[in-house]
């Protein structure tokens, strides 16, 4: 994505100095396009410095269906993403508040959800339930990982059920929807956030625009399936540009940390 001194906006092709681009949170100053970030960049964007601790990093994908070219695809992705799968999970502090955090990685097979992604998300939600932590998930995904067939579909049920377990311990799920959030990930934990924050301009939907266009045989309206469109239709709570994301998140976390009553209220399954 980034070469040494300059970087080009993938949308309008404007060339930026990398240091300027970095201080603008990888958002194009000309067209406002939010570049996709990998997990280390997200950790720097959101977490208090040096607080991220990785969990469940040792989970690795198998090729249970012996699906054509999947093994090669996995090997290439593992090399490129230096070992972790399409989601990084762990704990961190954000504005001095402890959270359980997951960040999906578009560099790893378009952050599609296979068994490992489902398992790591489920484990993180269970960990957060056990330790009474709020959960923040930075979401980005092309959907279910086709190469794991029906097993990838079942990760939708697994993760949705685990959100329920988190709620059983009265902890919130805060979802950050980034470009693109589609398919089976949208139709499971991505749409189950207690507070859902979308990045400006992000594509968010169930079916991909191409599939819809093919089905209905007409052009899609401009702005269809953008974060702003979802806000208008009532499907997300907040749309923010990246530079305000951390402050927004801190504000939401603060309110959830404080108990409304002086006595202990609820908390049992």
């Amino acid at each position, binding site marked *: 994505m980034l070469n040494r001194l300059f970087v080009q906006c993938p949308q309008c092709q404007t060339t930026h100095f990398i240091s300027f681009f970095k201080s603008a949170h990888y958002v194009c100053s000309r067209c406002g396009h939010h570049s996709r970030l990998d*997990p280390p960049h997200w*950790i720097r964007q959101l977490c208090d410095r040096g607080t*991220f*601790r*990785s969990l469940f*990093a*040792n*989970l*690795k*994908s*198998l090729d*249970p*269906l012996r699906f*054509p*070219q999947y093994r090669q695809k996995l090997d290439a992705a593992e090399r490129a993403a*230096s*070992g*972790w799968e399409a989601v990084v999970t*762990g704990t961190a502090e954000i504005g001095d508040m402890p959270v359980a955090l997951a960040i999906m990685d578009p560099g790893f097979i378009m952050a599609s959800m*296979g*068994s*490992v992604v*489902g*398992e790591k998300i*489920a484990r993180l939600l269970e960990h957060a339930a056990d330790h009474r932590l709020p959960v923040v998930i930075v979401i980005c995904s092309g959907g*279910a990982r*086709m190469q*794991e*067939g*029906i*097993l990838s*579909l*079942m990760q*939708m*049920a*697994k993760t*949705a*059920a*685990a*959100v*329920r377990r988190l709620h059983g311990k009265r902890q919130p799920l805060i979802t950050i929807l980034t470009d693109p959030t589609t*398919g*089976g990930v*949208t*139709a*499971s934990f*991505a*749409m189950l956030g207690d507070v859902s924050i979308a990045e400006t301009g992000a594509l968010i*939907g*169930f*079916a991909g625009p191409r*599939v*819809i266009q093919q*089905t*209905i045989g007409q052009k899609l*309206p401009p702005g*269809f*399936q953008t974060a702003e469109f979802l806000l208008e*239709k009532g*499907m997300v709570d907040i749309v923010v540009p990246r530079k305000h994301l951390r402050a927004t998140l801190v504000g939401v976390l603060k309110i959830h940390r404080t108990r409304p009553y002086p006595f202990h209220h609820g908390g049992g399954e």
Partner: protein
Amino acid sequence: MKPAIDVVRLARHPKRPTSRDFIEYLVRDFVELHGDRRFADDPAIIGGIGFFADIPVTILGHQKGRNVRENIRRHFGMAHPEGYRKALRLMKQAERFGRPVITLIDTPGAYPGIGAEERGQAEAIATNLYEMSGLRVPIVALVTGEGGSGGALGIGVADRVFMLANAIYSVISPEGCASILWKDAAKASAAAEALRLRAVDLKELGVIDGIIAEPGEGAHEQPGEAMGHARKAIAMALKELLVLDEETLVRSRYDKFRRMGAFTLDDGLSGLI
């Protein structure tokens, strides 16, 4: 064993018994209930209440048309958000009155369209997964024809999941898979094989609990016989499930889906970042 693509054709056979046929066969004194109380009544999902043997049940499923005209009206069994919300309404109602739920799965997938997206297709399915995973009454699901991706799973989080022998259940259609993989929808036959979408495959992968036998060439030949086998399997499942207390029931359902997946542990990688 039949080639996967032949099973795909059988699963989509126009004469295959639909959810309505199953409901007529399985349930006595059926009362159909309509609407999601939010937006509309989705003709692609039907449901209601009745007696299965002597047990009051809620039964619902995707409904394909039995001819072209009906298929167009029912969107070929592809539900909109209001369909999933109707299903959820009926399931929550079943929970309120302690009735077990039977779901019948037969859809190419959730409807991909402008209205469906506007009204929150993803949210509707996600909410069903979430609510079904905690529903405090037994749920038995039966994949009767096509189990198309999230549109199928949206009514498929159950304590027991059965498939008819010539039904399919997949994350993507073989045509969709072939066009992504090989940019060629005509290679659906190879994709169908690779996806492992037959009942026997799913049993082996630990995703379903049992296979319902179909006589002869498929359920369209002697629907009564296939539906008879389905009735036996559902009756047996309900007998096992109705004696469980709510906690055990919900915990077992959680554990059932929690176990699904295939991965390995590589300890050289822990604590990487």
